[in-house]
Structure formats: structure tokens, C-alpha cells
């Protein structure tokens, strides 16, 4: 369809927006999006003020959330920065829900509103609906109801047990939020009503038989002899889940609070793993959709110039030595790769034929949709980062070994380096590499009930200095001693943290 320049009248010429214009742009963009086969949830476009945008920012982008001081801190600092002009607010926030909620700021020009609609309401929206991680991990139709349930529940707890008591539990849970995710299993989605009844049932169940674990009824002789077994028998990666189910001293409302934080953490889990893809996908589509409108004559040249201006600044990647370098820009990398895949499909070079024999000369839209549906950042880069893209970004890989006094350049953008750069870049998006791998290793069921966590070290990297602080939070939830062992790949315990700290020397079993 490219190149067919049917001449329509432009939808608008000025920069002022009105609701009628937004409606018209949305209609046109929806038409073009459907033409490209983007499958989306229905959209709910909400026009808000900058102040409301700051509110949305500070409750982690959610339209509603429970109350907590950390959101207040976020709000205060956003407000401060915004007022001083240190940062502009994002043009949009989009929420993975069904219908998909997107916020437009009233200060935006008509061009920006159209850009945001294309980016959020059709780009992100179709990603949320299509990507396998979102499909398995989040339930778009239930999230708003769940948040409402969570907010009300926590409100009720605050009334009953006091703000401080609830805040203490929430603080502790937030510290462990990244460890509240089941990576490999997923329950069937349930409705919020079920959630409520289940919550009551759980409460009652737990009240009735708190835990098999702490059952003090003496066992028969032969059973007692072989109790060297660890509990849990396999290490548990979901710390919050383990605590929710097994912490001996938590009251039932505290368990429910732990659960709420865990559920919300799970909801964010796919977003953390698909940032590059998600943004790249949305940028690719706002670029493609708006250019399509331009080709049809529906938007003016002025419109497209303004659009390109903000588009290019969004997808700009500053070099590593620039003063404002702040890591790899996910928009730049994602957008670049998406465009690159399209190029490989449409105009492959010999190099591409060698590297990507399976996608050259295929339909670019199908290939992109396939990539969007079935990959996350890590695997997406490993699969699709092309030598040409590496050259364009001028990537180089650095090995930082703390035992050596210098940094080594392991690979650069040349023939011998493409593969390594691709692997290293992909690995840096692996959450397992970025965050310490910490699992519940053992509970001393027969003894002092102490909880042992194990940090499985990767590349000899130790834990950071906030570990003791976090352990205090774990201790609060668990109620008994907590110890954290760092284990190297040989199974040797390298270092141990205790909470409460032990004065005497400990045995490194």
C-alpha cells in the first residue's frame, strides 16, 4: 500500500487540539492500524492535567493504588523536578488493562496528542495484548479491580491495626518486591469477586491449621530418624510467596498484605523484561502509522516535521562518553531493531542473508508480529540484533574484572565481535544477571526456626551494601533469625549475613 498517495484534506492544520479532533485522529489511526493488522484492546483515552500526570507518575502509573509513603516520596520529587524545569513530564502513560487506559496531557499540541495515540493506544496496546509474557503473567481485564480490592483491603487494615503497623509490613514487602515473582508457574486467572471470597477462605483456613510445619505433635519413632531433609525440599525463588505461606508468626491480614504486594509485583514482571521491545514496538508503529497518514495527505507537512522532531529526540542514543549518557536508551535500541528487521525483510544485503536466512524476503509485518508475540528483551536481542545494527550503534563490549586493574575491551563492531556483543548485550537484559539470584534454601524446622536464604553468585559478584537493611525486613516478616549465604558455583559458602547480627563466629557449613 505504500506510495499510494490518495489526497485527502488534512484533518487539522493548527496546533490546538479539541475533543472532536482527537476523535478524528483516533478514528484515522485506528483505521490504519487495522490495515496493518494490529490487534488491540479497546482504548480508553483520558485527557488529564499535568498535576494529574504527576499523581499518576507517583503511584507507579496506576490509576489507583494503596497509600504508602514511598509513593509520596516519588510524588514530592517529581513535583520538585518538574517545577524547577529539570524534567518534562512524559507525554503519556499507558496502562496494561482492558480497556487499555492511556493518559494524554492537556498541555500537548495536536501533533503530540496524535503521536501519543499512535504510540500508546495502538503500539503499546497491541504489545500488551500480543506478547506472550503479558499474556501469561498479567490479566488485563482484572488488574483495575484487583487494585481496588487491594486499596480497600489495606485501608481497612489501617483502620483496624493502625497506619504504622501496616506501613511496616508494606515496607518489608517492598524491599522484597523483586523477589515476589513465580518465574515458571502461573495459576489460572480468577475474577475479583472470587479473589475476595478466596481471601476470606484463606484467612479461615490458615487460622484453622496454621502450619503443618510447626506441628509439635511428636512423630513416630521411625519418622523422626530421617528428618535431615531440608524445608523447602527444593529452593524457592519466590521469597514473598514462601513468607506468605510459611512465616510462622504473621497474622492473617499480614499474609494478605504480603500477597497483595506479590500480586502487583507479578503484574509488573513482564514490563521489566520487555522494555526494549515494548518501547521499540510502540515507536516503530507511531512512526509507521503517522507516516502512512502523511502519505494519504491526512496530516500536514508541518505536523510531520513537529512529529519527527520529537520522534528523533526520543530515539536518540548518546554515546557512552557523553555527559548525559545514561545507559542504553531502550527506545533507540528497540526502535532501531524493529526498523532493521523490516529492512532485512524488504531489502536484505548479503550479510543479512547469511545471518538471517529465515527472515529475509518474508513479509515484514508478519515477521515483526511474530517477534513481538514470542520474545522478551533477552531473547529478542539474541535472535535479531544484526551486524548492521551493531555497527550503527557502534557497540563495544567491556569486561570489568575487579581483580584486574584495567578494563578489557572484549569485542567491538567488527566481524569477529558481532556474536560476542550480541550475547553480552542480551545477557545484560537477563533479569537473572541484573539482580542477585536469591532463593529460600532452608528453614530450621526442628531447631530455632531460622530461615536461610542463599545467594547463588554469578561471576563472583557479591551482594551490595543494603543487604543487611533488607534482611531486617525479612526478619520482620519471618519473625525468627534470618541468615543469608552467598554461595559460589562450587557450592562453597563465601560470605554470610545474619539478622539479627551474630556477635560470635558462625560456622560456615
Amino acid at each position: 500500500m505504500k506510495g499510494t498517495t490518495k489526497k485527502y484534506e488534512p484533518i487539522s492544520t493548527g496546533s490546538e487540539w479539541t475533543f472532536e479532533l482527537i476523535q478524528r485522529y483516533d478514528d484515522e489511526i485506528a483505521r490504519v492500524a487495522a490495515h496493518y493488522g494490529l490487534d488491540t484492546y479497546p482504548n480508553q483515552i483520558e485527557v488529564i492535567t499535568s498535576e494529574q500526570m504527576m499523581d499518576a507518575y507517583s503511584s507507579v502509573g496506576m490509576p489507583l493504588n494503596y497509600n504508602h509513603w514511598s509513593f509520596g516520596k516519588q510524588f514530592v520529587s517529581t513535583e520538585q523536578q518538574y517545577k524547577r524545569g529539570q524534567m518534562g513530564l512524559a507525554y503519556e502513560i499507558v496502562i496494561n488493562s482492558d480497556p487499555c487506559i492511556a493518559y494524554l496531557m492537556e498541555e500537548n499540541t495536536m501533533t503530540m496528542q496524535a503521536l501519543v495515540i499512535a504510540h500508546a493506544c495502538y503500539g503499546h496496546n497491541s504489545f500488551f495484548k500480543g506478547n506472550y509474557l503479558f499474556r501469561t503473567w498479567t490479566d488485563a481485564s482484572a488488574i483495575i479491580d484487583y487494585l481496588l480490592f487491594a486499596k480497600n483491603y489495606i485501608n481497612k487494615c489501617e483502620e483496624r491495626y493502625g497506619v504504622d503497623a501496616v506501613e511496616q509490613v508494606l515496607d518489608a514487602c517492598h524491599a522484597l518486591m523483586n523477589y515476589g515473582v513465580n518465574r515458571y508457574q502461573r495459576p489460572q486467572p480468577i475474577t475479583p469477586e472470587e479473589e475476595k471470597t478466596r481471601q476470606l477462605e484463606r484467612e479461615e483456613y490458615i487460622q484453622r491449621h496454621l502450619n503443618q510445619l510447626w506441628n509439635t505433635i511428636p512423630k513416630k519413632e521411625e519418622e523422626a530418624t530421617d528428618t535431615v531433609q531440608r524445608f523447602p525440599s527444593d529452593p524457592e525463588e519466590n521469597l514473598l510467596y514462601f513468607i506468605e505461606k510459611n512465616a510462622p508468626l504473621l497474622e492473617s491480614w499480614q499474609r494478605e498484605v504480603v500477597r497483595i504486594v506479590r500480586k502487583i509485583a507479578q503484574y509488573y514482571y513482564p514490563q521489566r523484561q520487555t522494555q526494549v521491545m515494548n518501547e521499540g514496538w510502540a515507536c516503530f508503529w507511531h512512526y509507521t502509522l503517522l507516516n502512512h497518514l502523511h502519505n494519504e495527505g491526512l496530516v500536514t507537512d508541518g505536523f510531520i516535521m513537529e512529529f519527527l522532531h520529537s520522534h528523533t529526540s526520543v530515539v536518540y542514543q548518546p554515546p557512552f562518553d557523553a555527559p548525559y549518557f545514561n545507559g542504553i536508551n531502550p527506545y533507540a535500541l528497540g526502535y532501531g531493531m524493529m526498523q532493521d528487521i523490516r529492512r532485512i525483510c524488504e531489502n536484505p544485503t548479503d550479510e543479512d542473508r547469511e545471518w538471517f536466512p529465515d527472515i529475509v524476503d518474508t513479509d515484514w509485518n508478519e515477521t515483526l508480529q511474530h517477534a513481538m508475540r514470542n520474545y522478551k528483551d533477552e531473547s529478542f536481542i539474541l535472535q535479531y540484533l544484526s551486524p548492521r545494527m551493531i555497527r550503527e550503534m557502534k557497540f563495544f563490549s567491556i569486561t570489568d574484572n575487579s581483580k584486574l586493574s584495567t578494563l578489557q575491551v572484549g569485542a567491538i563492531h567488527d566481524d569477529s565481535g558481532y556474536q560476542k556483543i550480541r550475547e553480552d548485550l542480551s545477557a545484560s537484559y537477563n533479569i537473572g544477571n541484573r539482580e542477585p539470584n536469591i532463593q529460600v534454601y532452608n528453614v530450621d524446622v526442628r531447631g530455632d526456626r531460622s530461615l536461610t536464604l542463599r545467594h547463588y553468585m554469578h561471576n563472583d559478584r557479591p551482594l551490595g551494601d543494603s543487604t543487611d537493611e533488607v534482611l531486617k525486613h525479612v526478619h520482620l516478616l519471618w519473625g525468627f533469625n534470618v541468615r543469608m549465604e552467598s554461595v559460589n558455583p562450587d557450592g562453597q559458602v563465601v560470605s554470610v549475613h545474619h539478622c539479627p547480627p551474630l556477635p560470635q563466629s558462625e560456622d560456615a557449613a
Partner: protein
Amino acid sequence: MSYIIDRRLNAKKKSTVNRQRFLRRYKKHIKRAVEDAVNSRSIRDINQGGEVSIPNKDISEPIFHHGEGGVRQRVFPGNKEFVTGDEIKRPEGGGGGGAGQGQASNQGEGEDDFTFQINQEEFLDFMFEDLELPYMIKKQLRDATSFETRRAGFTNVGSPDKLNVVRSLRAANARRIALSGKERRQVRQLKKEIATLESRLPDSEAEQQISLLQEEIDTLNKKIKRMPFIDEFDLKYNNLIRTPVPSSKAVMFCIMDVSGSMTQSIKDIAKRFFILLYLFLTRSYKHIEVVFVRHHTHAKEVDEEEFFYSRETGGTIVSSALNLSAEIIKNRYPPGDWNVYVAQASDGDNWDGDSHICRQVLEQQILPLVQYFAYVEITTGQHQNLWLEYEQIREQFEETFAMQTIVEPSDIYPVFRKLFEKKE
């Protein structure tokens, strides 16, 4: 299909609760910042909101993360001159040791302070937290402007929205019982007769009589039934009356020595003290008046401008100001209506024979009338006879009289706090 919604008119302050939680949690830090601000600010903007800084490490939310050390592979964009195998010096900025790692900026873990703005209201809240006006009494305001609506029983007339259903039905019930008393008594009588007749059954005469009586009962019951279930007469309405609310009002006397010995800097300190006091009083009283009295050898009631900025020379007779104040109180601010506060600032320099008189005036004429009398002496030198006389008063009037010394501007706020701290 898209829905476009205008949310701009929705509630804006969604984050207010979270913000308050945050302020509550870091009260201690904020209070310290406010104290610093109060001490360092100029007079005019002492009551503005302000910037508050908290060390970042105090408010961080800890999570498990990797520390420095080990082997890391990182990919960067924008290569210019590196080739494979190059060795690069570690960039500066990491911890001093060999394991230094210069990527602190990436982790967002600078040692910067977390700075934010609080508004005037919050600023004053923190500034005056835990302070109280001693012995505040609500006094009747003669020209009361505020009224409160209170319940006051029930009335027979009123508007339908004030209808009290329970009371009305109870009244209706009572009326029905009262007005049907005669009939029901008859019914009871007849029933008793029927009962005696029934014992004679079977008997045709009795049967006939019973049916007659039964008929009679029926007519009576009909009569009772005809009684209206509810009558206009039964309706009761909640009665609301407006009562004037005793509102508290106060007058504050600022007494300052303006003799030659008071330099501009001392007056400045005094002024700050008065302003603090004024701000504090306005938070507790809706209506507050300020009387400025300045004195050298004579006392005079002046306006604010003259109070702070005119300079005179001459000796010092403190009692003149006290006498004048006592007079003003008696004439214009009868203690029955007003809460009277007096703050006196001086460098402590007084004419020798006068201090004794001051004590008498205070003891006899002023202290019985006032809520609180605060004396601040702004001096770097030795206390003189005025202070010594006042010390005797303090022993006598421990509750209403307080005195403190201010040496330099940074003492103002602590002294102020001491004067008005909550008393057990």
C-alpha cells in the same frame, strides 16, 4: 473502538495522602530543616514555605542488589577508537579501593540530599509543632460572628426534611391508644362476658347472646380501626437551633525598649521574636490584635512601622511602658473578653530606681490580667537589675511569667520554643 474521556476536572490531589505519609515518616528530619530555615531567614519571609533537604540514605528503600566486585560484562554504544583487546583505565569515581567501580551514576546512588518543597501551612505546622499557648481560654466574643447549629429536641412544626419518623410514629401510637381507650375497655368487658357465657355452653340462649356480643365487639373494633393511623397532630420534627459559639480572640502586646542602647541588630532580633509570636498566635486565634508599645523614658502606643524603624535616644524607664500597657488592657481589652499576651523585649538596661517599680506594676496590675507574659532579654553582657527583679517575679508567678535570654539571632527560635513548649 475508543472512548475519549475528559478527566481534567477530576480530583487533583490524589497524592495528598501519600505525601502526608511521607512527611509524617520523616518528621524529625523536616523539623530540623525547618529549624535551620527559621534561624537563617530574613524577617519578611519567615512564614513562607520552604525547601527541605533530607540525606538520601535516610529515605532510600533498600533492595537486594549487586555490590562492587566480581566480573561484569557490559556493552556500550558510541565506540570511537577502541579495538578488541584494548585495556582501558578504570574511570574515576568508584570507591577508593582496587575494586572501585565508576558507574555510581547508573545506580542512582549519589550522596545528594533529597530536596523538596513544603508549603507555608506545612512549614508553620512543623515550626510550631509541640508548642502551645499557655492557659488559653475561650472567651465569649461580644459581637459573635460564628454560629453553630445544634440539635435541641423536637417540635410540632417544621419542614418535611426534618421529619423524625420514629418520634412521629410513637406519637401516633400514643394518640391511638389514648383516644381508643373507652372502646377497648368495652371490648375487654364484652370478651369477658363472652367467656362467662361460653362456660354455660351448650345453651341456645347463651349462644344467641354470644353472637350479639360478638356483633357489638365488631362494631367497636371497626370504630377503633377508623381512628386515623397517623394524624398531622402526630408529626414531630427535629429541632435545630443556632447557638453563638464562644470564639477565642486575643490581643498581643509587644513592648520594646527603643532607647539609645538598643541597636538596630537588637531590634531586629526583637522583631523576629515578635513575628514568631504573632504567627503562632494567629494559628490559635481567629481574631487577634496587636498593640505596639515602645518606650524610652516615656512610653507610647505606636503603629508597626514606627515601632520597628524609628530611633530615639534617651534614658530608659521600663515601668512607663508597663503602666501604659496596664492602662490599655483595662480600657480596651477587658480580660473577660480577651486573652492577653504580653511579650517584652529589652536589652536589660534600665534606670536604676525603676526596676523595683516595674516589679510592682507587673505583680499588681498586669500579671493578674494576662494569659502569659514573656520577657526576652537580648544582650551579650551581664544581666542587670531588671533581670534580677524579674527573677523574683518568676518565682511568684511560675505559670504566667517566663523569661529568657537571647544572645544572637540563632537563639531566637530555641528560646521561643522554650517559652511556649508544652507543659505537662
